[in-house]
């Protein structure tokens, strides 16, 4: 029992409420919101350290011992993601301070970003399926508001599609929860795992698990990603970066959690379907990334490819592959944020958003150009950047699982990632400079700073993979053998009595 587990949710939530009252004092809003996200990241690191010494942590709200109450469970996987999410959000906030503009700041963009972070962290930490639904909704409502902020026509229309699809997915989520409750009589994840193991995962539970799969693939953009490129390219760069870095990861987390903890007994059905969906996502995302000349759309399709890549690891389902997936999720959060910010900066500096309209930016903004290049290398998996270690481990895991088709597709997709981004780099940064020195918009240091930090982070994750290794290995070990998770949540004597 430790109260610290609730802080990554509570701090952003309370700060968001407080700064709503200071609509006109922008400085206060900025300071408080940055402090909230940075301290959440700090608490994430502290909890991560504690898990290594004390084992999996849990917090029973109101003192109701599980499985009766709602609880938060902190294992390495959840807290790695919490830390990464809070760190990335802090950096995106820094970028937003200098770019997003006063009209957005006065329309509560920071409180909404904090609500989003609270929902995301809540989804990572919760140990209860219904609470997962509620945290999803907190996150989604904040994302709806962020998407329409600014109120341009295209934003409103994209938002309507995005919201309708997500509302539909949410009700399907609730439907799946209702069936699950009817079938097992519990909603506590650890208790679910025990009950499903005891009674066996029959046809009924497998169908329920497929309903969950449908819901999470809509949220994560696994195969059902048709809504993603449109809605991720509508809002300003800082908000798009937040979406690209965090939102799909929550769907991925929920999928990994449920399919390694609860629905583990018919992998020949569920995990094969995940594998097929991941393969199709990789193909579709790659085609999409090459099909468009819009920079933001290309970057959005790269999000789709990454989702497929990460879930290939879940489909393979062995420990090495899961380690690879975890490394890759962390890497992808950092690099996608970097890519969205760099892409957004290109667009805001030139006022153009398509390949062919921009050229020779490297002469005008060399630092931005090389940062984009660095993000590209990292995303492709070139050592020493962060993408490398994830790709190697995932490759090893896939060979171990003897799923060679997935292996081929996963690594072919890296080539498409490289090609699609190289196309942006060659067309927009190389070539004849079209912007003269006089008309060049000045690039502020404070705008570039968060992108530089993200670049340093991807380098640090790549170089310091050894430092991260114990956390990632522990996270993967808990996923492979959920017994330690179950024992941390449910007391031994209670388990025997049940």
């Amino acid at each position, binding site marked *: 029992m430790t109260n610290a587990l609730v802080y990554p949710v509570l701090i952003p939530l309370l700060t968001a409420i407080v700064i709503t009252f200071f609509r006109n004092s922008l400085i206060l809003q900025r300071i408080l919101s940055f402090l909230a996200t940075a301290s959440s990241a700090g608490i994430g690191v502290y909890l991560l350290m504690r898990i290594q010494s004390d084992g999996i942590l849990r917090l029973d709200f109101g003192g109701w011992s599980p499985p009766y109450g709602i609880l938060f469970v902190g294992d390495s996987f959840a807290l790695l993601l919490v830390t990464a999410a809070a760190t990335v959000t802090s950096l995106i906030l820094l970028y937003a301070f200098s770019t997003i503009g006063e009209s957005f700041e006065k329309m509560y963009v920071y409180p909404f970003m904090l609500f989003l972070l609270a929902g995301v962290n809540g989804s990572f930490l919760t140990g209860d399926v219904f609470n997962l639904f509620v945290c999803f909704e907190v996150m989604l409502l904040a994302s709806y508001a962020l998407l329409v902020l600014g109120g341009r026509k295209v934003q409103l229309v994209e938002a*309507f599609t995005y919201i309708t699809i997500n509302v539909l997915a949410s*009700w399907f989520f609730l439907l799946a929860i209702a069936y699950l409750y009817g079938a097992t009589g519990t909603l506590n994840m650890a208790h679910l795992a025990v009950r499903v193991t005891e009674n066996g995962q029959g046809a009924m539970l497998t169908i329920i698990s497929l309903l969950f799969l449908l819901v999470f693939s809509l949220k994560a953009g696994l195969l059902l990603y048709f809504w993603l490129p449109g809605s991720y390219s509508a809002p300003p760069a800082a908000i798009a970066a937040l979406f690209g870095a965090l939102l799909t990861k929550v769907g991925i987390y929920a999928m990994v959690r449920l399919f390694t903890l609860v629905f583990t007994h018919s992998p020949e059905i569920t995990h094969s379907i995940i594998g097929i969906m991941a393969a199709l996502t990789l193909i579709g995302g790659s085609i999409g990334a090459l099909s468009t000349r819009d920079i933001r759309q290309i970057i959005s399709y790269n999000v789709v490819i990454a989702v497929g890549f990460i879930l290939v690891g879940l489909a393979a389902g062995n420990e090495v592959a899961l380690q690879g997936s975890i490394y890759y999720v962390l890497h992808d959060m950092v690099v996608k944020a970097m890519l969205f910010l760099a892409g957004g900066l290109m667009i805001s500096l030139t006022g153009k958003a398509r390949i062919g309209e921009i050229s020779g930016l490297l002469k005008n903004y060399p630092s931005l150009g090389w940062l984009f290049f660095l993000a590209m290398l990292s995303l492709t998996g070139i050592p020493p950047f962060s993408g490398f270690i994830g790709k190697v481990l995932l490759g090893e895991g896939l060979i171990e699982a003897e799923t060679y088709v997935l292996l081929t597709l996963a690594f072919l997709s890296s080539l498409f990632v490289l090609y699609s981004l190289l196309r942006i780099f060659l067309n927009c940064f190389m070539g004849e400079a079209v912007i003269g020195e006089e008309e060049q918009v000045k690039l502020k240091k404070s705008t570039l700073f968060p992108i530089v930090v993200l670049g340093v982070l991807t380098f640090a994750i790549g170089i310091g993979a050894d430092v991260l290794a114990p956390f990632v290995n522990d996270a993967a070990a808990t996923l492979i053998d959920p017994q330690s998770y179950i024992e941390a949540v449910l007391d031994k004597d209670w388990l025997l009595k049940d």
Partner: protein
Amino acid sequence: METLITLLVGVLVMVAVYLLLSRNFVRIILGTAVLSHAIHLLILAMGGLKKGGAPLLTEEGSNYTDALPQALILTAIVISFAVTAFLLVLAYRIYRETGADNLDNVRRELDD
């Protein structure tokens, strides 16, 4: 009793799907609202419908009503309310900005 409720859920889902498949904003929003109610009823049915039992587990523990589905529904209703309100305001804003009240006209408006 459960059978009746299940049939009612089926009817509601049918109505919701019909509304969701239209291209008019207000109908789509009503569709999501009806769907949410269908699922709330389903949760209630999943908890088992009993008459006369208190939601308290006694020593004998024979006749008691499961209170959890009601707590779940209460939460879900609040969320459904918030989302529906947001969608309605959004539809109104789109109407104000583009003068269109269905998806076809909006697309045409955007292309112009």
